[in-house]
């Protein structure tokens, strides 16, 4: 028999197998991409390098915010050998059942990848742990950094770090769940600058998760960019003194260097210790602070909007003088039927009007500004025209709009113009008689403390200002941020300010001035007290000032809530701070002691609200 033909069966089988194999290889190697992705997920790991967050310095180069190392105890379940869990739980300070649970969770997550067993152990505590850690294979410490606040001041201003919210993760691809992000204050505003840019390295790992080298010689690696340091204009001494003086009082202090717009101190009281919102204790403390009835988390310096009260009269005087509706020696009688006033001699000049803070005087002044007879047919249209010009000039003082400041969550206050009243009452349905309370800084006018401090800076500079800002320079101490080198000039000629400064000087230095408590030996202080009406209780005291008059180096606004008259509390606090800043000494320990010991929050509890006086109308 001849079976010669049967060799073709084997040949056919060989060719068929070869064909099938090559087809299959072509499929999995060239066509199907899923293998490449799964190979990458198996053997390639992305290691993220977190750059150190930038520091924040005060104006003298002292640290406001720095980083401190803490340690996470990590566990790689595969490497763990049986050990005395009770002793280990004691060592790292975790209850035993909790430790067991965390170990189970870690195992569930991955046998090979490290999981956190205990977070953020302070360096001091970790030193005691680390010497024993070698006895527990599979456990190791991993250092991270937390924020630390050496002077423990300016909590509102600085903000804090918190774990990034899911919404933020969804909105910004840079962040991943578990990252920290600045919340509030400079930490939030300068987040991009402070955090730097994290780098990533791609490495190859073997099946046991050991790193075997860089992937493709680091072709896809990116270097971490260190966070930049911030150099602020804050003076730690002044900030601390301000916080001390405001203890047990509600209110705020804003001090500026009028020559540059730099914020010297920004106090909001009640405040809190910034260390409370760091690390493991943050969540608990945040809850406590948030539920505190005195609202320590609320930043009064930037967000509290008050009617400016009498201080507004200075700006009114300036605009009126510049518009020519009054002269320096214009006199109005103090007719209390127009608007209520206190007992004082008749103001025969603008200086005296400021000094006495005469309400009817400014009623008249504002009337002249609003009713300029520009439209002879209708007093309604006339008022709109007059008020429009007034609004433009008033807004040039940085009022009525959010300050262009380097902090988040700013409020802008309100300067009501024609558009505002048209909205409120309807077009041509309002006139001077409707809005006269604006003349004395009441009614719809609202300002925030930072704007008031800036107003003081404008008076000090005789008509110009730089935008108030906290951070002078980023990265290098000597530079100045470009946007804060832009000078804003107000819509009032400089020479009118001489009269204003004189008026403000008299407020402090002459008999009958409302702020004699603000005097500093050897320094000419210009100031103006005010009272912000408070419908809920005793009025808020306001005081703005600048000094020295001849060459102003500091301008500030002090708010003390529920303290009634501005001269009693706000003026002495301002004078102590200015003295500290200008001379580095306090020469009046008795005043200092009285201010430190005052507890206005306690006093407020005993305050019995007076029935609100019906405002007199014409």
């Amino acid at each position, binding site marked *: *028999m001849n*079976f010669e033909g049967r*060799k073709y069966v*084997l040949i056919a089988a*060989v060719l068929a197998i070869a064909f099938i194999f090559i087809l*299959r*290889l072509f499929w999995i190697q060239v066509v199907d991409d899923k293998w490449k992705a799964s190979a990458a997920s198996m053997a390639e790991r992305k290691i993220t390098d977190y750059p150190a967050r930038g520091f924040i310095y005060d104006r003298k180069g002292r640290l406001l915010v720095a980083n401190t190392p803490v340690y996470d105890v990590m566990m790689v379940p595969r490497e763990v050998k049986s050990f005395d869990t009770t002793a280990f739980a004691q060592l790292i300070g975790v209850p035993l059942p909790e430790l067991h649970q965390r170990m189970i969770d870690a195992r569930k997550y991955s046998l090979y990848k490290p999981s956190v067993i205990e977070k953020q152990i302070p360096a001091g505590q970790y030193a005691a742990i680390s010497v024993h850690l070698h006895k527990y294979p599979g456990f190791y410490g991993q250092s991270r950094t937390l924020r630390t606040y050496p002077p423990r001041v300016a909590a509102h201003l600085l903000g804090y770090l918190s774990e990034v919210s899911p919404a933020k993760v969804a909105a910004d691809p840079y962040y991943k769940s578990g990252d920290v992000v600045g919340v509030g204050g400079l930490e939030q505003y300068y987040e991009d600058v402070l955090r730097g840019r994290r780098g990533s390295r791609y490495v190859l790992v073997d099946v046991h998760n050991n790193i075997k080298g860089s992937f493709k010689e680091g072709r896809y690696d990116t270097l971490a960019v260190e966070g930049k340091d911030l150099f602020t204009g804050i003076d730690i001494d002044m900030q601390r003194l301000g916080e001390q003086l405001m203890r047990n009082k509600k209110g705020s202090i804003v001090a500026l260097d009028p020559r540059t717009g730099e914020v010297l101190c920004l106090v909001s009281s009640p405040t809190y210790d910034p260390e409370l919102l760091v690390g493991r204790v943050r969540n608990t403390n945040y809850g406590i602070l948030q539920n505190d009835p005195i609202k320590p988390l609320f930043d009064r310096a930037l967000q509290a909007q008050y009617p400016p009260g009498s201080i507004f009269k200075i700006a009114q005087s300036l605009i009126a003088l510049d518009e020519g509706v009054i002269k320096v020696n214009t006199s109005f009688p103090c007719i209390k039927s127009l608007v209520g006033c206190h007992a004082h001699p008749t103001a025969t000049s603008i200086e005296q009007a400021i000094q006495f803070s005469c309400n009817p005087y400014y009623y008249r002044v504002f009337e002249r500004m609003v009713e300029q007879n520009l439209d002879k047919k209708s007093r309604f249209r006339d008022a709109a025209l007059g008020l429009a010009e007034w609004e433009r000039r008033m807004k040039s003082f940085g009022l009525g709009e959010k300050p262009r400041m380097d902090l988040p969550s700013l409020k802008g206050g309100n300067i009501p113009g024609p558009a505002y009243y048209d909205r409120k009452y309807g077009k041509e349905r309002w006139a001077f008689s409707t809005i006269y309370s604006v003349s004395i800084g009441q009614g719809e006018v609202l300002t925030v403390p930072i704007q008031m401090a800036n107003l003081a800076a404008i008076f000090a500079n005789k008509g110009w200002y730089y935008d108030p800002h906290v951070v002078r320079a980023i990265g290098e101490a000597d530079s100045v941020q470009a946007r804060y080198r832009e000078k804003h000039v107000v819509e009032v000629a400089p020479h009118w300010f001489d009269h204003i400064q004189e008026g403000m000087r008299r407020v402090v230095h002459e008999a009958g001035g409302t702020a004699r408590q603000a005097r500093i030996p050897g320094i000419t202080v210009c100031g103006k007290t005010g009272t912000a009406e408070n419908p809920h209780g005793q009025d808020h005291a306001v005081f703005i000032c600048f000094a020295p008059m001849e060459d102003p180096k500091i301008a500030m606004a002090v708010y003390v809530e529920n303290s009634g008259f501005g001269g009693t509390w706000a003026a002495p606090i301002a004078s102590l701070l200015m003295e500290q800043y200008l001379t580095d000494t306090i020469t009046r320990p008795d005043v200092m002691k009285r201010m430190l010991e005052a507890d206005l929050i306690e006093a407020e509890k005993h305050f019995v609200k007076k029935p609100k006086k019906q405002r007199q109308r014409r």
Partner: protein
Amino acid sequence: MSARENVSANFDRPLLLMYLALMFMGWANIYSAAYDPEHASIFDQSKEYGKQAVWMGISLTLGGAILLVRGHIFRDWANGIYAFVLLLLALVLVIGKEVNGAKAWFGVGSFGIQPAEFAKYATALALTRYLSGLKALIDFRSRAISTAIILAPVALIMLQPDTGTALVSGAFILVLYREGLSGNILLLGILAAFLAILSLILKESFFDLPFTDKQLSGPMFLLLVIAIIGALAWFAARNLVVKRLRRRIHAYIILGVLASAGCIGSIDYAFEKVLAQHQRDRILVMLGQMDDPQGIGYNVKQSQTAIGSGGFSGKGYLDGTLTKFKYVPMQSTDFIFCTVGEEWGFLGTAFVVILFTVLILRIIQISDRQRSKFTRIYAYCVASIFFLHLTINVGMAIGLAPVIGIPLPFFSYGGSSMIGFTLLLGTLVRLDAERLSQLR
């Protein structure tokens, strides 16, 4: 000059060249698979590539020596070699070293010898010798004897146990077929295999029996389908086939249905009772009945991932990641093909598959040009063995065959298989070179 003296000039150059090419390519890939920068020398004896160099040296020496042996000696000594290897296989069960649960190794220092790897060579010689003495493989006696020659070493290897290596002897079925074993047997075998696979695939499924509330298990359903097909065939035959043949057709149909039923039943039994758990799992994974990448399917998934990630042109020599960092198990032995796939890509794998295909076809071609029946059958044995190794080894690496641990000839790390394949091929080259001087 007589043809006999001219023997060395007749050595088949393409075969020798392919042999060397495969061997050195294999070495290069083992170097990459086991690469350790601290032992970068390819001759470093603490590493597999260094040891493979030694095995290559031994193989080349042995191969050279075998080319000098006169052809008739293989024929004369065939039974002796066969007996000697059987003895070794028996001996290894007694004094062998146990590695991975199998008593398969004679230990010599840090080198080990696996006698099972020589069994295919010995079996090929003995079977060839027996078959070359026959006119054709048609009577029962000759079939029984050839089956016995094949199965004796298989039985001993199964005792180690090393199912993979034992399975290689399945290659000899191709030889028997070539030498006259009825094609029907082969066909029935394929049919049985088909039924077996079907019943395993359907093993875990259940089918609702229409019009009743009964459920049928997969194999029962299969039986039902076969019975229905049989019944249909019965009636078809009654109406369409001439009366003269009808009786025979009906007999075939009954036999076929009964044989199928028996096959399905015995498969179920063999699967549950004969195979070990890990073998059952491997088969189920290959059939797609079990998907458990972290456990049983791990090897297959990892090896496919490694090969698949190579892409068209590969990641570059020594730049493989999965194969180098131990993601692929047995990456320098049974799964060496993964290294080829990952580092050389589709170009590399296709090249290797084609090279093996050309080698096998060349051996078949050599077989065809023989006047000596011994050489012809022997060459066919060699071709069949290489074919089976290629099919199973590459098949399992790319997920087309169950995981059966047999080496890829000349590629996989291991001295015994290297020497075994060298002997197989060297003997063939020598026998072929004498074809002109050999009388029929």
